């Protein structure tokens, strides 16, 4: 097989592995945010802002994986 094809396949697997952690993390963040909003609807605005922040920070690893996939 060509080296390029193998490299692409490995990069693809790497991105897949890199996406697992952030996937679980975002699930936890959003799930807990929903719980918080359900318990205290008057805080929903603040919880939503914090939720987006949490998502943005958690997402970082998946994004780095995505970029490395194209660089590799």
């Amino acid at each position: 097989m060509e080296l390029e094809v193998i490299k692409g396949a490995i990069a693809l697997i790497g991105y897949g592995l890199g996406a697992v952690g952030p996937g679980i993390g975002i699930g936890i963040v959003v799930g807990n945010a929903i719980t918080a909003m359900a318990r205290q609807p008057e805080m929903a605005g603040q919880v939503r802002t914090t939720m987006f922040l949490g998502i943005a920070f958690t997402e970082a690893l998946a994004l780095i994986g995505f970029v490395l996939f194209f660089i590799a």
Partner: protein
Amino acid sequence: MGGGGCLAGQGKEPRLDRLILASECDVKNELICAPANVNDLFVAHGDWFHIGDFAFNRTTFLILLAAVVSIALLYFGLRRERLVPTKFETAIEGLVTFVRKDVAVDIIGPEGVRYAPYLLALFIFILVGNLFGITPLINYPITSRMALPVFMSIITYLIFVVVGFAKNGFHFVSDIVWPKSVPIGLRPLVGLIEFVSTFFLRPLTLAVRLFANLVAGHLMLTLLLGSGVIFVLAVPEVGLKSLVGVAWFGFGLGIYLFEMVVAVLQAYIFTLLSAVYIQLSVHPQH
């Protein structure tokens, strides 16, 4: 590829020549059109004119257009104060109030008003740039070129570093490298992580988040909608098999709706994170 120019050769649809996918799509053997090189989808083909080393092409034009549209929105939206504003003016006022109150003041605090113009400019420019990706006839999110996110993230970086030094002096760096609230044995480790995260990962992820989301969105839209059109138009040539294009096109329309959400959300997140980073420099204790 084998079916190169299969559609261009028919001469029925001259505009399809300009679809990069169409020229290299093998409709007979493949189930979806994949470009040989992803970069082709993000490069403007052909420069319009040159000014010295500076080439002016479609991307450059769209960036200028986004700037003009952003300025025009604000100018015509806030040109005069009316007792009863029109719908357009109300919308723009709502946008400005949202960035000023819900982002700048709520995150940074009362001093946030100083940074509100920057955040508003960021928000509107990124929003317009993102929405170019789903605007018919433009179909190209300018923020999917790394240059723009990097440029905006460098400005945010400069602002929060300069503000941090101006407000806290040398303590800005020393509190990050040697955090007082951590047990002394862990301080070098936590300090190192915090230092790398603050000064390298923050600007990097800020730029990459916007870039990667828009690249992924543009890729999905091009592949699905492009394949859909090409396959459906190839039905007379290939037969029933290429009706799979209908499924691609339908899926693409779903992604299109999703991209509307992504465009607004990413503009919001970029602005929000810029505000948070500035806030961490203004009040480093929290």
